[in-house]
């Protein structure tokens, strides 16, 4: 963290940005009240601080507890932002029941994301009416509208850029002070605003939160398992300073598509291993990827190596990259490849996926070389969970994967 703090962002001048943007916001909002949608992440926190410089007390920060946040997150965020130097009095809106009900029975990633967006803006609409706010301020940044406009995935905080008029649909107008910036520029702006490192360098968390890390069908049990796994994985990986690292959960249901039968051979060939050492399974639930600038809602290949080979190849990032490339090049429907770290023979029906990547701007991402021993430690802990019997490590860069799974 310390190292990144000192990195200046070339060609981006926070003070110039700030004076231009605050002038624009004053002109836009005049003396009207503005509701600021806060998640506790760096984007919405920085957007709110920029707006407060312009608008002062006519800004009302509101945070929605969607039920898909980390354990204890809403209370922690509210408490942290109330302190110096942010001094934001955030009002919490509890809506976990509403969000869960709205995505009930949905398994498609895009449907889940769209239902989430709808509930999110319905709640903001109710709150804005209650508070008499004409404007909603949000922390949308460049990758959000680029990915949504490009049809890669629907981000929950993008309306106007995809032809939805917020005034007509929800009765409020939207302000996005950071819409032209990337994450590293937002962090630089945060540092300029004297945000402490724990906030300006905070690990990103998607708007729909654990909803998009709970692959396919959403159940209370899957979310519970995922919240625990998130805590464990974040704790184990935080010392490594990866730009993004997290856990996801998927059900152990596998596809029987016969055209994929040769895939174990392809994988064995890529690693130079006999076929008896390699076994590939294809998960039934689909995951989001991007191939040739196009959304590819494709398949996830789970590669299991014999225990001995795993001990060798788990450390060899270059070979794992070959493994991933050979599968994704050959099978156009497969977007992502994960390597089995550890399994338990009996009991359980869920797999945990561990993902860690290095990225500057979240537009491309390289797989971070998590030491195999650390992955085994995580898996060892994870397999104590009754419903979890496998732990995988995602070895797919973006592209052809995306950073999140859905």
């Amino acid at each position, binding site marked *: 963290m310390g190292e990144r703090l000192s990195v200046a962002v*070339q*060609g981006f001048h926070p003070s110039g940005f700030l004076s231009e943007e605050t002038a624009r916001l004053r002109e836009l909002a005049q003396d009207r009240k503005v509701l600021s949608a806060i998640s506790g992440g760096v984007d919405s926190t920085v957007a709110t601080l920029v707006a407060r410089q312009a608008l002062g007390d006519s800004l009302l920060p509101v945070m929605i507890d969607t039920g898909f946040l980390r354990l204890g997150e809403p209370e922690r965020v509210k408490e942290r932002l109330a302190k110096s130097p942010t001094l934001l009095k955030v009002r919490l809106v509890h809506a976990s029941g509403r969000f869960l009900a709205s995505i009930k029975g949905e398994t498609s990633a895009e449907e889940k994301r769209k239902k989430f967006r709808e509930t999110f803006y319905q709640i903001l609409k109710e709150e804005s009416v209650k508070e008499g706010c004409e404007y909603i301020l949000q922390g949308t940044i460049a990758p959000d509208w680029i990915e949504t*406009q*490009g049809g890669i995935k629907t981000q929950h905080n993008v309306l106007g850029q995809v032809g939805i008029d917020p005034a007509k649909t929800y009765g409020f107008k939207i302000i996005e002070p950071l819409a032209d910036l990337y994450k590293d520029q937002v962090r630089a702006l945060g540092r300029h605003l004297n945000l402490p490192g724990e906030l300006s360098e905070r690990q990103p968390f998607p708007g729909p939160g654990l909803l998009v890390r709970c692959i396919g069908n959403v159940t209370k049990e899957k979310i519970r398992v995922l919240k625990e796994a998130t805590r464990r994985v974040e704790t184990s990986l935080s010392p490594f300073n990866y730009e993004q690292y997290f856990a996801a959960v998927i059900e152990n249901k596998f596809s029987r598509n016969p055209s994929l039968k040769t895939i174990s051979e392809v994988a064995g060939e890529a690693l130079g291993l006999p076929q008896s050492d390699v076994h590939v399974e294809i998960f039934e639930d689909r995951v989001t990827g991007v191939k*040739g*600038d196009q959304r590819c809602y494709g398949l996830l290949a789970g590669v299991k190596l014999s225990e001995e080979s795993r001990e060798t190849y788990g450390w060899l990032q270059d070979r794992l990259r070959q493994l991933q490339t050979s599968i994704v090049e050959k099978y156009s429907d497969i977007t992502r490849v994960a390597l089995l770290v550890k399994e338990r023979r009996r009991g359980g029906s869920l797999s945990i996926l561990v993902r860690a990547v290095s*990225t500057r*701007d979240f*537009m491309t991402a390289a797989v971070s070389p998590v030491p195999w021993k650390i992955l085994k430690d995580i898996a060892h802990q994870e397999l104590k969970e009754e419903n979890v019997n496998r732990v995988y490590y995602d070895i797919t860069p973006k592209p*052809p994967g995306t950073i999140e799974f859905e």
Partner: protein
Amino acid sequence: MTTIPVVYVKGQYNHLIVRNLKELGVYSKLLPPSVPPDELQSIDPDGLVMGGGPQSVRSPNELTGELADAARLIRQVKLPMLCICVTHQLLATAFGGVTEAARKPEFGPVEISVIEEGRILEGLGPSFTAWESHNDEVVKVPTGFRVIARSSNCAVEAIRHEDRDIFGVQFHPEVSHTAKGVDLFKNFLHIVEEHK
């Protein structure tokens, strides 16, 4: 200030090209490919970069409206021009080349071998790592163009016009994981400044 707008054909990285150019002190912004000639004139550009996008150019007669507009720009604009990914393929087909489905598509890191550095790839040889994301590739280079880089999967990673300052690259110099991408933009900027 040098002005180099970026033609936005809905690719994920088009806006990153603007960012790269701004970081080099250039004035840049996204323009739709349908930008009318007089509007383009009014910006007074010194060069043009065309971004990538999700569309296919395999059938030159069945281009999307956006790519048809982009092809018109490629043919009409007489400024230094850099075409990336799908517009690299479009550049080739607009001048009579052929684009087809790649035998081996490339996603993520790829090793690029430089055949001829010239001005645009100056300092990038003999090889460098670039990130890619493409299902199609140029299989026939039009007359008047030269191939200046290749990879083990793809024979046409970069082309240049023999007389004019027009360049096409299959890879993405604008993404941060293409470490030497910024050098390519610096080279292009030099070319634009010499052309002024």
